[in-house]
């Protein structure tokens, strides 16, 4: 039986982190499931599903030395694994506009009420320091259909929002 734990590492980005962390996990009989690493600003962030028979404390003790070497903060949560429980995205949403506070809150609140289940979200602040442009990309499941999502954000006049069905070809 698998013992899944979610390992989170955050800190200043530098080359070699993934290799060092995955090596120490492998040497200690931990197995990886799904993982997502992203550089956010100048920061390294990763969340990895780790199948490891020991306790969360044991997993932390394995990771702490390598995290310390790279100056990373580490965190472990015992989780339900649920591999092969993917939800299929059927809508893609992109949004951009002059940056202001509250874009994500106002857009996602409306979208949630119109049946959106967000499966992946990325945001970025592009443009320049003087004229920052906020960009958000979402993929998700539209339980009430795409048109309901379009109507829900229709009043957000200062934002350009594109909501399109996501087709998947299975062959």
């Amino acid at each position, binding site marked *: 039986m698998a013992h899944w734990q979610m390992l989170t590492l955050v800190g200043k980005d530098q080359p070699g982190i993934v290799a060092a962390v995955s090596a120490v996990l492998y040497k200690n009989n931990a197995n990886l499931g799904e993982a997502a690493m992203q550089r956010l600003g100048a920061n390294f962030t990763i969340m990895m599903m780790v199948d490891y028979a020991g306790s969360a404390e044991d997993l932390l003790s394995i990771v702490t030395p390598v995290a310390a070497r790279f100056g990373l903060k580490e965190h472990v949560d015992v989780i339900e694994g649920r591999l092969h429980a993917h939800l299929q995205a059927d809508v893609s949403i992109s949004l951009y506009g002059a940056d202001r506070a509250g874009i994500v809150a106002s857009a996602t609140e409306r979208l949630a009420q119109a049946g959106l289940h967000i499966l992946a979200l990325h945001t970025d602040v592009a443009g320049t320091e003087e004229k920052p442009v906020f960009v958000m990309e979402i993929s998700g499941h539209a339980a009430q259909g795409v048109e309901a999502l379009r109507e829900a954000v229709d009043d957000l006049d200062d934002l350009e929002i594109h909501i399109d069905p*996501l*087709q*998947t*070809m*299975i*062959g």
Partner: protein
Amino acid sequence: MAILDVLTYPDPLLKQVAAPVTEFDSSLARLAEDLEQTMRAGPGGVGIAAPQVGVLLRVVIVDVSSRPGIPNHGRLVLVNPEIQRWKGMVKGREGCLSVPDFIGTVIRAEHITLQAQDIHGGTQQYQMQGYEARAVQHEVDHLDGLLFLDRLVSRHHDLKPRQS
């Protein structure tokens, strides 16, 4: 007719190049029927290639007519299919009966000119676009031992690196 077992990666047969069909006989007709039934038994499948059921022959079935609002040629049995022209590039999401529980982003030609033989050996030519063209390209790849996993691209990045 029978629903056949679909091979899943890493079955080595999925990485083999399939041989051209030379006999347009009753066993080919039976293979096409079985392939179609197997495709329709799978969840949401709009195409299948003979190597996916362990038959290394250049036969595929494509039928995207169940998807609303998509230009299509209906149910197609494509024997010895050959894509003769590719035009345009478009990213799209693909899954595969032989790679369960994974959806990936793949670049395909937006328009293709396809030549294929029908079940009786007659030569047909098709102009295809979009979703149907994607399905055909995915299935023809199976005949050459290629999976969509061999063509994955990041969904976040451009179709081509920008030329500076």
